[in-house]
């Protein structure tokens, strides 16, 4: 059943890759409701469970829709129009987890030496240096700036290790991005975005898209690097208790390294979002 959470409804969601849609009806699920997409001679079309047409947008090779009335637009990604960027869409993966847990995990650095051992982090260099959290009220975005972490192999091109500098950006509750110094072109920043399709409160699909400054790696090397990282994260978010994201901090113990996690939950709480939180009661 479609959620009644107005805040969740009034957002745009990526629900498919544009190139996987054909004339055959393509069923999927969004916020508890069955929806169907198709590419007809007249163009893309979608309808909800009751047969009512849904609005559609195509961007970044993805198809977006909404079950509500979004006030905002789909996030603008400046790197997407830079002609020399390597664009790497990484494919969709299902996760038996709240999409909010997936966003929170993407924002997290302290797990690198354990979950992505010898790739994005390694013992004993486990320290998370202080970073800045910014609520950008005008754009209604959340940022974590000036993040630094020691990474033994930050990207497909990296073989020596580096003190990586990262900025994180959360443009909407189910979209999260990062900008990091491109290991093979240190004057530029790679851009990685994760679009999440919340299907149920604790079931989602997600697709990472990358716009990289990398003249060296093959497309498949960049793709496989990110896919392996994402699967390592999937093990975590499918096994947190509760599966949904608690907005109440009583059951957990955040420390300074968790500032972005706390800020994200605070931002969701302020918005009044409930779908996918531990406090969500099902309506």
């Amino acid at each position: 059943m479609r959620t009644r959470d107005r805040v969740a409804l009034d957002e745009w969601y990526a629900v498919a890759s544009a190139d996987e849609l054909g004339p055959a009806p393509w069923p999927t699920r969004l916020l508890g409701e069955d929806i169907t997409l198709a590419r007809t001679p007249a163009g893309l079309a979608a309808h909800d469970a009751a047969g009512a047409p849904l609005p559609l947008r195509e961007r970044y090779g993805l198809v977006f829709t909404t079950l509500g009335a979004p006030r905002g637009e789909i996030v603008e990604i400046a790197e997407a129009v830079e002609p020399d960027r390597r664009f790497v869409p990484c494919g969709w993966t299902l996760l038996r987890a709240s999409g909010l847990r997936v966003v929170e995990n993407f924002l997290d650095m302290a797990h690198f030496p354990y979950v992505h051992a010898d790739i994005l982090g390694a013992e004993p260099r486990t320290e998370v240096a202080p970073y800045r959290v910014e609520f950008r009220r005008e754009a209604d975005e959340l940022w974590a700036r000036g993040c630094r972490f020691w990474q033994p192999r930050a990207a497909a091109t990296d073989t020596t290790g580096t003190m990586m500098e990262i900025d994180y950006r959360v443009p909407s509750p189910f979209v999260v991005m990062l900008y990091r110094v491109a290991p093979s072109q240190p004057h530029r920043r790679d851009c990685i975005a994760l679009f999440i399709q919340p299907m149920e409160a604790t079931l989602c699909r997600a697709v990472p898209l990358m716009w990289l400054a990398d003249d060296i790696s093959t497309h498949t090397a960049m793709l496989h690097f990110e896919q392996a990282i994402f699967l390592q994260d999937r093990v975590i978010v499918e096994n947190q208790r509760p599966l949904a994201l608690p907005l109440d901090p009583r059951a957990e113990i955040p420390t300074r390294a968790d500032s972005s996690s706390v800020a994200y939950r605070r931002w969701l709480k302020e918005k009044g979002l409930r779908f996918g939180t531990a406090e969500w009661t099902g309506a």
Partner: protein
Amino acid sequence: MAWTAVALAADLGVGDVAGTRIDGEEIALWRDAGGTPHAFEDRCPHRGMRLSFGFARGDRLACLYHGWQFDGAGRCRAIPAHPDLSPPATITLRRHRCVERAGLLWVAFAEAPPPADAPAWPVLSLFLDRPATTREPWRERIAGTPLLLAPQPRSPTQSAWHVVALAPPADAAALRAALHARRRALERFADEQPAASERRHAMAGSSHLRSAREAG
């Protein structure tokens, strides 16, 4: 019965970490470098990750997510994101009582006199897709061998029997075959009950697989 058997002692080696459940309560079992078994709430107090996915480091259990380390008393001893700081004694997790008796590992949520000890030879654990019908261990002679069978209610629909021999088994192969046959017979019987929901629960994660199917 305040104590519940959760494993054969021989099935949890030094440095092993394993998940189990008593009445649906998730528990992380692990054995430290000194050989002492421990039972923790299967949830890291930091960000809720299941500790049964973690790893033992000497006399501590480390969480897979951020490497937080807990000693046998359940006290947090290291937070790797802040390597120079020492966690206060107040950061602890929920720990259950855990003892090794009669070749079995036992867990209790409340204070109770420990279960009786006896010389025992490990046989096997049987995992059943049916509820536990008793919480009391019982003795039985199967294939000529005197046995102690200790039930574990795991969930409303699943249980386990942890079986040890109280004398060296006369015919170990026949004994195991008889136990497996017993399990199959019991599950067949359970299948004849109007228990579609039971089988659904029996397969952890099947609901998300169904939803996945709907996702196309």
